[in-house]
């Protein structure tokens, strides 16, 4: 190799590394810019329209409130996060067996599916007061609400995934005389995972909503409770602080799932 070639090689290598670093930076930078611009617009609007703080606080007010009330908000944040995750986990545990049944038995699919669709058609918020009557003011009705709201997207996506095994993989399993357990474990379930994750990503955002709805109806802690309570005291700034924390929670949970998806199903990246 001549020196010129070596230099060229290094230059190309360098350019590639730089572009990869650039791509990652862009992925972090662009969303950050979006958020900064939105906050700036919010702030600008409060200045231009001169809204009073009890209607729309400025971003600065909200930040100060979060700092002042950090220990209270941290504990409420934990409560809501716990309810969301527990409900989400339970929803997965219930939904996946249902999906397997739907995917494998045409008869049970015809029996269960319409009931699931009907159940999903009920506005969950309408059931929230009933859940309180049935389960009291504890954590129970919140978890139930999260499960109810997350269940459907997970069942649908998992069942679709289990039924969408590529024909050539089904043929391969058959040509090897795979048992139905082997077919499920080695072919159908792994092939369904990218679909499962689609449902999980929809469900995780709903999980937080479910927890908040549960807290709205009857609770003594959690960010949903904070919003209701601060509404009663006209403490708009505190309500805003809770809302900001809820969206932070949703975003973090969503991207945690995206990360998990990369680890579990690296083959379906694109």
């Amino acid at each position: 190799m001549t020196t010129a070639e070596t230099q060229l090689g290094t230059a190309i290598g360098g350019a590639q590394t730089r572009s990869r670093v650039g791509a990652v930076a862009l992925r972090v930078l662009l969303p950050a810019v979006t958020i900064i611009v939105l906050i700036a617009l919010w702030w600008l609007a409060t200045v231009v329209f001169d809204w009073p703080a009890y209607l729309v606080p400025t971003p600065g007010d909200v930040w100060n409130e979060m700092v002042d009330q950090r220990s209270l908000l941290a504990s409420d944040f934990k409560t809501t996060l716990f309810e969301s995750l527990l409900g989400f986990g339970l929803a997965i545990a219930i939904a996946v067996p249902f999906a397997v049944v739907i995917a494998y038995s045409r008869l049970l699919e015809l029996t269960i599916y319409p009931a699931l669709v009907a159940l999903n058609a009920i506005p969950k918020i309408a059931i929230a007061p009933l859940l309180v009557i049935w389960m009291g003011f504890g954590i129970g009705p919140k978890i139930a609400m999260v499960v109810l709201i997350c269940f459907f997207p997970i069942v649908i996506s998992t069942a679709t995934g289990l039924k969408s095994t590529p024909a050539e993989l089904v043929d391969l399993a058959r040509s090897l005389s795979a048992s139905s357990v082997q077919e499920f474990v080695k072919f159908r379930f792994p092939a369904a995972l990218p679909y499962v994750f689609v449902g999980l990503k929809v469900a995780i955002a709903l999980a937080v909503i479910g927890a908040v709805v549960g807290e709205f109806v009857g609770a003594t802690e959690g960010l949903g409770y904070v919003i209701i309570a601060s509404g009663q005291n006209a403490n708009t700034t505190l309500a805003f602080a809770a809302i900001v924390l809820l969206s932070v929670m949703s975003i973090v949970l969503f991207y945690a799932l995206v990360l998990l998806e990369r680890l579990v199903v690296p083959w379906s990246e694109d």
Partner: protein
Amino acid sequence: MVGGLAATAIQLSGISHVFESRKARLHALDGIDLAVRENEFVTLVGRSGCGKSTLLRIIAGLLRPTVGDVRVSGRPVTGPRRDVAFMFQRSALLPWRTVLQNVMLPVEILKLDRRTHRRRAEELLALTGLEGFEDRRPDELSGGMQQRVSLCRALVHNPSVLLMDEPFAALDALTREELSLELQRIWSEDRKTIVFVTHSIQEAALLADRIAVMSPRPGRIARLLDVTASRPRSLGITAHSNELDRVSAELHELLFARETAGQADGPAGPHRSVTTDPS
């Protein structure tokens, strides 16, 4: 050729198949008789819709024929068997498994000894030039390499019969020719009975000991042709290419002449010659 002494590996007698759905009735195969000798390389060539893939699926036990008898190594085929391997047009690799894990899949499913077969898997990968790629995932490989992995997987449990359904059809022309040569080389080192479905005349001629030419609607074997050129064959060797050109020309005539002559001349003469094995 070994001559008439070689045992029969695959025996098809009077195979007919009809696909029936609510709207249509498709007579896919009609009265197929074919005997494939042990370690023979037979290509099934024909135009789209002539039933060649259906016939292959019937031999594999993936499909029960409407009428007729299929035997592999003398035993009737009632379903998929472990002495028969199938290779698909699409590589059908499991994207979540590495190359080596994909090749080992039949070993796991058939519950064979992992250690000895792992050695065989590695040998096969080396034989197909995939050494060093054992831990890659299929999506990191080119189409040609994926089909090589698929071939290794089909061979890992040492089946006596290999059925190949247009395995190179999705590849570009150069890769296709390269893999044809490789398949010949592997076959010469590790003899199997191979039935290879293709719609490429050149491929059919290059690979086959015997070519079964199929005609469509309903699918019949129109002619059986022997290819006598010595192996390993290559299109780059003049003596071979002369012989292969002659066979290709004959195939062309058979496949396209029927089209102009119309369907009327169907079954009468040629397909009866099926059982007369010139050996």
